[in-house]
């Protein structure tokens, strides 16, 4: 009935059997050592199994086997493993020069003789002589050996001589190799004889048997490849003969096929070709797992037998597989030992089911038959105990019937067996990271437990799987129904509810099973629900169960279902309605959204929201999980199908202001719906959703609506802050004292005291912010600021405060002012931020240039000569200029400075866009005569905005100019203060040679008719370095008014005309001549 155990022999590799005799370990230490050497086998040495026997008596005798039909004798492999030796080795202590040599010879021959006679199965006989001394002449040994062999009628190949004086282990090694050779020969011979046996009309049984024997002997020959080949042949024979099997023999054939398959797979793994093993196993399954179970001894029994066999097959393979893995094979999720354990358990479960059915359908009243038809031992694999030995049909039939009874009586569902298989499988799946497969096993385990009559266990498993979620829908529902069934039938109130509220969930389009609704409603108002499963139960069971329910519901029941990981009849989400941090004295509003996911309205006795307070890390503060810091509750709510209803609550932090610290989080930890009345008798059920569930409800991966997901808010001690609702962007002129009108509002809901505004350079985001200076209360400019704003402000109060500052940098600057204040009645100072942007521009644009004395702009000025400096200021706003100072460079001497060092007589008022010009004559005097640009210095402008009292001192740079060298500088002196008409006027031209060489030059006058002239018109002069040369001429103006000044020209071979021309340009262009003075003489 149960699948056949192959026997111990299959475990472990087959080893060659060698019998030793003639050794006496107890009295002869030498022998003992020798024996020990043989006994301790190491893998590197030939695969022997050595056994010591006393003498021929212990040699196995041929046994007469009864002639019965069958494929493989169970005992056959043992025959070669434990009984029939490949070799029998006789040990003798015999030196060549033994004093009584001839007696010894006789003794030896008799021993060998008797052994030879009692040896069956052509086992080989070997003799080993143990000698103490070596002979000096090998030839002598030769001789003696021959003599010995001759006496004992054996070939010299069978004789070995070991010198016990020498190194024993090396001898043993040699011996073993020799033994091995002989043993191989022995098995080879066996194989030959077996192969040579002719098989009458190729009966498959015999063929298979032969192939198996060949295979096994090859294994003994340590020739696993040949073995594999033979086993395969045998297996193929089984498979091919499949169709001609007689039903009575199915079991036997399958047993053999199974055994062969096992051996083959084992060898595949041994040869490290696991793929072949797995393919073969799959082939094996498809070849042998889908046949007809047959109907012997009876249809049901055959079926059960078959499933058990399949299960066994898979399990055995799993064993091999796992062994291979232990030896270093790597398996994968798709194929691993678990896969086959899984199969095994499936078939095993089927068998259990069949047994259950069999027991249910045809219960046996008869007592166990006697004599036991299953008692007798069987010779063959898969042989039926009741078919051992030749029987006449009548007895056979009778026995058979008895056997069927016996079997059925013996049969029982083996739940433990199934559970072991399942747990083994699940461990494997865990190991290879297959969560879903693992879940599958858990479901099956659940079924097994249920079958074993342990509904609680089953439920545990099922509910666990269901919690994992992501099960295919139909599967999920079936599982839920199972859970409902099992919890209902076992009157488990909470579990029933657990299953039913999930089953209640339907699509808006879907249809609700009225049954589930009925159970739910009934339980809610503590009435016994009619048994939904009455069809599947016997009448008395139905009554019994509903009776139990009645009892249960009579006393009041409290239970809580945690719905967090389930998709149930209500969809719950919750969130705080704000993102900002909150202060301990505030109420935090939150919203709970409940959507009924079933098609009938439900009224709950209340919805409760529990919030916890956690450290900033999110770790809960406080001990017990159910100790919520805040609880808000609303009673009697009714939900309509599939319509979200929002409930708004406010958590008042004041309630536990004492424990809330800065930085804590307040987190919505649980929403629970209640049905029933805690105080009344009856059923009071609570359905809970914990934090993650509440957040998780949003399944739209692409939803950005951040605030909707806020499950916790951060607590800060800050109670609102102070904001500036006045000027935020101010334009000003560079360096002026501008003022910003701040209007500070108390946005907090508390009375504030000691409100100040501070500016700290260290706090600033923009580096340029430090370029702003502030006017403090004592009119001092300061880099940092601290301003008292108000001694106290009530909530909503507004205070104006002008902030005077001056920006030293043009462009716009962002300032971060800090507001500091105390909440009245509290020590520590609160801080807030007030942002301010300042954009400043220059008060005026400066343009400056150099002119000749005649007022002609020049790009380059002549060294050692006088010019005019002209500065234009174009104002950018309405300003007054109160004073200017010249700060001229040292190349310039300020010929005369007009209003130096004191204010303008009256300030120059400029409207936006006006231009004012200031001039001053300058003498250029540069030591080095380089042609590069020189700065002319700076100008200081004192100005103020019209109407403002603060005046600002701005320093502006003046232009740069090229100073060209001037070899000859020419100046003129006019003899009289006033030039009068028709009065002689002495004009002296002073020429100064600025170089170090003598300059030859000619001077000339171009005469004009406006002047009468006396002096040298044309004259050549020699200018000595540094010595001024005066050329005097006297002229008399013939007309009055502004006449062009008498012009001197000068030429010199050593100086370019252009330079001299420049020099001459400095002479006045015109001269004013008064008319005749007659009139006022008279």
């Amino acid at each position, binding site marked *: 009935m149960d699948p056949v155990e192959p026997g111990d022999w299959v475990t472990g590799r087959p080893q060659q059997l060698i019998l030793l005799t003639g050794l006496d370990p107890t009295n002869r230490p030498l022998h003992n050592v020798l024996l020990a050497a043989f006994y301790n086998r190491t893998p590197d040495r030939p695969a022997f199994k050595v056994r010591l026997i006393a003498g021929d008596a212990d040699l196995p005798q041929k046994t007469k086997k009864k002639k019965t039909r069958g494929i493989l004798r169970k005992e056959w492999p043992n025959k070669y493993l434990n009984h029939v030796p490949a070799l029998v080795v006789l040990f003798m202590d015999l030196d060549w020069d033994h004093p009584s040599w001839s007696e010894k010879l006789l003794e030896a021959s008799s021993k060998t003789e008797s052994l030879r006679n009692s040896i069956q199965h052509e086992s080989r006989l070997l003799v080993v002589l143990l000698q103490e001394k070596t002979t000096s002449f090998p030839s002598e040994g030769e001789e003696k050996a021959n003599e010995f062999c001759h006496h004992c009628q054996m070939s010299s190949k069978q004789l070995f001589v070991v010198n016990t004086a020498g190194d024993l282990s090396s001898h043993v090694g040699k011996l073993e190799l020799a033994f091995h050779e002989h043993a191989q020969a022995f098995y080879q011979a066996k194989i030959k004889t077996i192969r040579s046996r002719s098989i009458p009309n190729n009966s498959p049984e015999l063929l298979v048997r032969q192939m198996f024997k060949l295979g096994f002997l090859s294994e003994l020959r340590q020739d696993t490849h040949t073995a594999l080949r033979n086993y395969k042949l045998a297996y193929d024979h089984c498979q091919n003969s499949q169709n001609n099997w007689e039903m009575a023999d199915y079991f036997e054939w399958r047993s053999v096929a199974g055994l062969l398959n096992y051996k083959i797979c084992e060898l595949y793994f041994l040869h490290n070709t696991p793929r072949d093993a797995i393919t073969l196993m799959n082939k094996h399954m498809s070849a042998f797992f889908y046949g007809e179970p047959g109907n012997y001894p009876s249809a049901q029994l055959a079926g059960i037998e078959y499933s058990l066999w399949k299960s066994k097959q898979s399990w055995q393979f799993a064993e091999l597989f796992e062994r291979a893995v232990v030896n270093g094979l790597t398996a994968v999720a798709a194929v691993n030992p678990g896969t086959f354990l899984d199969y095994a358990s499936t078939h095993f479960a089927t068998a259990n089911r069949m047994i259950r059915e069999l027991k249910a359908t045809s219960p046996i009243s008869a007592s166990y038959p006697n004599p036991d038809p299953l008692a007798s031992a069987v010779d063959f694999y898969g042989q039926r105990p009741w078919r051992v030995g030749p029987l006449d049909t009548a007895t056979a039939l009778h026995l058979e019937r008895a056997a069927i009874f016996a079997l059925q009586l013996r049969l029982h569902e083996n739940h433990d067996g199934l559970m072991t298989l399942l747990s083994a499988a699940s461990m494997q799946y865990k190991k290879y990271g297959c969560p879903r497969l693992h879940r599958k096993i858990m479901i099956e385990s659940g079924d097994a437990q249920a079958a074993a009559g342990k509904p609680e266990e089953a439920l545990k498993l099922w509910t666990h799987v269901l919690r994992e979620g992501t099960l295919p829908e139909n599967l999920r529902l079936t599982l839920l129904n199972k859970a409902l069934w099992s919890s209902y039938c076992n009157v488990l109130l909470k579990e029933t509810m657990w299953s039913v509220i999930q089953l209640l969930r339907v699509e808006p389009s879907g249809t609700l099973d009225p049954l589930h609704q009925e159970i739910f409603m009934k339980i809610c108002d503590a009435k016994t629900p009619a048994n939904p499963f009455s069809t599947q139960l016997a009448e008395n069971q139905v009554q019994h169960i509903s009776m139990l329910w009645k009892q249960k519901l009579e006393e009041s029941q409290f239970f809580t279902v945690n719905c967090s990981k389930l998709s149930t009849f209500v969809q719950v989400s919750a969130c705080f*309605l704000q993102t*900002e941090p*909150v202060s301990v004295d*505030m109420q935090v*509003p939150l919203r709970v959204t409940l959507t009924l996911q079933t098609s009938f309205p439900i009224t709950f006795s209340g919805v409760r929201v529990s919030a916890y307070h956690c450290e900033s890390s999110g770790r809960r503060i406080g001990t017990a999980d159910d100790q919520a810091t805040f609880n808000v509750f609303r009673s009697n709510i009714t939900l309509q199908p599939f319509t979200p209803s929002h409930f708004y609550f406010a958590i008042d932090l004041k309630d536990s202001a004492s424990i809330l610290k800065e930085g804590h989080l307040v987190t919505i930890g649980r929403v629970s719906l209640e049905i029933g009345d805690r105080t009344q008798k009856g059923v009071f059920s609570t359905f809970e959703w914990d934090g993650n569930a509440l957040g998780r409800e949003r399944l739209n991966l692409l939803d950005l609506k951040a*605030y909707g997901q806020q499950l916790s808010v951060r607590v800060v001690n800050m109670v609102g802050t102070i904001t500036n609702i006045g000027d935020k962007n101010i334009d000003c002129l560079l360096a002026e004292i501008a003022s910003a009108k701040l209007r500070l509002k108390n946005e907090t809901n508390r009375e504030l005291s000691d409100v100040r505004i501070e500016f700290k350079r260290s706090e600033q985001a923009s580096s340029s912010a430090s370029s702003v200076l502030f006017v403090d209360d004592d009119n001092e400019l300061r880099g940092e600021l601290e301003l008292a704003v108000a001694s106290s402000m009530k909530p909503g109060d507004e205070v104006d405060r002008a902030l005077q500052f001056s920006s030293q940098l043009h462009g716009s600057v962002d300032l971060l002012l800090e507001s500091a204040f105390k909440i009245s009645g509290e020590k520590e100072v609160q801080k807030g931020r007030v942002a301010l942007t300042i954009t400043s521009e220059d008060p005026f644009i400066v343009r400056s240039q150099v002119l000749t004395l005649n007022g002609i702009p020049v790009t380059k000025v002549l060294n050692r000569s006088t010019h005019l400096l002209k500065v234009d200021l174009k104002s950018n706003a309405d300003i007054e200029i109160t004073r200017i100072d010249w700060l001229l460079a040292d190349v310039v001497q300020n010929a005369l400075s007009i209003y130096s060092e004191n204010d303008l007589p009256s300030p120059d008022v400029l409207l936006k866009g006006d231009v004012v010009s200031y001039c001053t004559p300058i003498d250029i005097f540069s030591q080095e005569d380089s042609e590069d640009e020189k700065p002319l210095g700076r100008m200081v402008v004192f100005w103020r905005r019209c109407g403002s009292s603060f005046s600002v001192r701005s320093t502006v740079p003046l232009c740069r100019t090229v100073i060209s060298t001037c070899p000859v500088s020419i100046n003129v002196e006019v003899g009289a203060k006033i030039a009068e008409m028709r009065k002689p006027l002495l004009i002296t031209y002073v020429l100064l040679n600025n170089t170090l060489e003598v300059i030859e030059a000619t001077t000339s006058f171009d005469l004009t008719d406006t002047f009468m002239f006396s002096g040298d018109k044309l004259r050549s002069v020699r200018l000595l370095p540094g010595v001024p040369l005066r050329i005097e001429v006297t002229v008399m103006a013939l007309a009055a008014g502004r006449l062009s000044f008498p012009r001197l020209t000068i030429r010199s071979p050593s100086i370019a005309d252009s330079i001299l021309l420049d020099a001459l340009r400095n002479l006045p262009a015109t001269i004013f001549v008064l008319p005749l003075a007659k009139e006022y003489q008279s």
Partner: protein
Amino acid sequence: MSLPFDLLHMEMVRYGKEKEAVARADYPKEVLEGLDKATSSLVYKALASRNAETNLESIGLRTGFLLAERLCRDLPRISTELEIMKFICKEFWISVFGKQVDNLRTNHQGVYVVQDNRFPCLTSFSDGTQYVKDAAIYLCFPCGVVRGALQALGIQALVTPTTDQLPSVKFHIHIKTKLT
């Protein structure tokens, strides 16, 4: 991008802005029941927090997600982060913005900078720095699109645009998590 699309985009921006304006008005009154002044002002803020930017970005997010799914349907498998970024810069960019990006740089620590010197969504503005501020909102939708595409390919990323000279844009992609 085609004219109708540009117009649609403009309209989305318009819609977003208008919505933001009215968002404050239409929050449920019962929220304020039994709340003190300070609190209700916070709620008010919270409910208004759905501003035009979020609105546009989430439109883009969905669009990008779907486009990416469609696009890589017809392309060989894309798995590594780099492959994904390449995909975004080539096939994806071309099919959404009608051109390849002009430059892709990375610090090999999950930060990528995608540069587009002539970004289609900005061509309606005159070049230069003058309108940079006004243009910002026209980058919310594209950001969403890129982010959506990344999300479709299993990358949670922060996408922020910077532009200092229209119509060129730099998208800074800061990869947060590669979900599996």
